[in-house]
């Protein structure tokens, strides 16, 4: 009598129950992979050609792009980025000190002129008219 039901599983000497495992779903790539039995030989000078292409790519890179990339590399370092921000703060302080000095000199000259006008009423008159 022919057994037309689901195939039965048997375990002899082990406790494995193979019936619990489902067969994997068929992948459309499987037949193709089955046909790929022979691995072709790599072309001669493969490594040399790869390095040559890398060198060509580096040469053809735009210098501006290279500069930008190296800048990005530098700023990716936390120490450099922190130093840059601190340097900017110090530059701001330095420029502020220069500005304060400049304004102070101008203010001193202006106060000196105002003081002279204050103590000398004739300072606004033409020099020829100042003689008593």
């Amino acid at each position, binding site marked *: 009598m022919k057994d037309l039901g689901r195939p039965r599983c048997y375990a002899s000497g082990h406790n494995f129950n193979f019936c619990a495992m489902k067969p994997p779903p068929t992948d459309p790539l499987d037949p193709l992979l089955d046909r790929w039995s022979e691995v072709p030989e790599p072309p001669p000078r493969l490594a040399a050609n790869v390095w040559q292409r890398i060198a060509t790519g580096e040469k053809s890179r735009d210098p501006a792009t290279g500069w930008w990339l190296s800048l990005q590399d530098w700023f990716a370092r936390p120490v450099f980025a922190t130093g840059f921000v*601190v340097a900017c*703060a110090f530059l701001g302080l330095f420029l502020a*000190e220069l500005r304060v000095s400049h304004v102070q000199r101008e203010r001193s000259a202006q106060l000196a002129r105002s*003081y002279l006008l204050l103590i000398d009423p004739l300072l606004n008159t033409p020099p020829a008219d100042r003689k008593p």
Partner: protein
Amino acid sequence: MKRLLLTLALGLIAGIGSHLAYYRFHEPAGTDTLEGQLAWMKTELKLTDRQFARIKELHQASHPKLRAMAAQVAQMQLEFGEFERSRRTTDQVDFLEFARFVEIRRNLNRACLDSTRQLVLASAEVMTPDQRQQYLALVANAEPLVGSLPN
């Protein structure tokens, strides 16, 4: 890329922030009042409190008189302009009136110079030789005061 831009922005903010904060804190105060000018003199000439009090007293005492004289000088200049305009338009000069004007202006100029000289001399007397030298360099433009001042 993003990190680079963020760092640049942070640097810009830090620079501008520190600049503005420092400048606002150290910005020299500007004032054209008598008190402001005397305070500037105190700093510039390194006056002691006692010297400053005396110099302030001298300046405050002479300030109203000098201001009144400055107003008179301005008025005399206007009158002179009026004389000049009248001479050009009518080709006539009232010589008596002009002589009176010249006399008044001469007296006013003499009074101005005397007042200024007295104030500068009195202020210079309070100062040390170094301060006096610096002060005289400051008022050097207010000639002919310098020649009459002691060294």
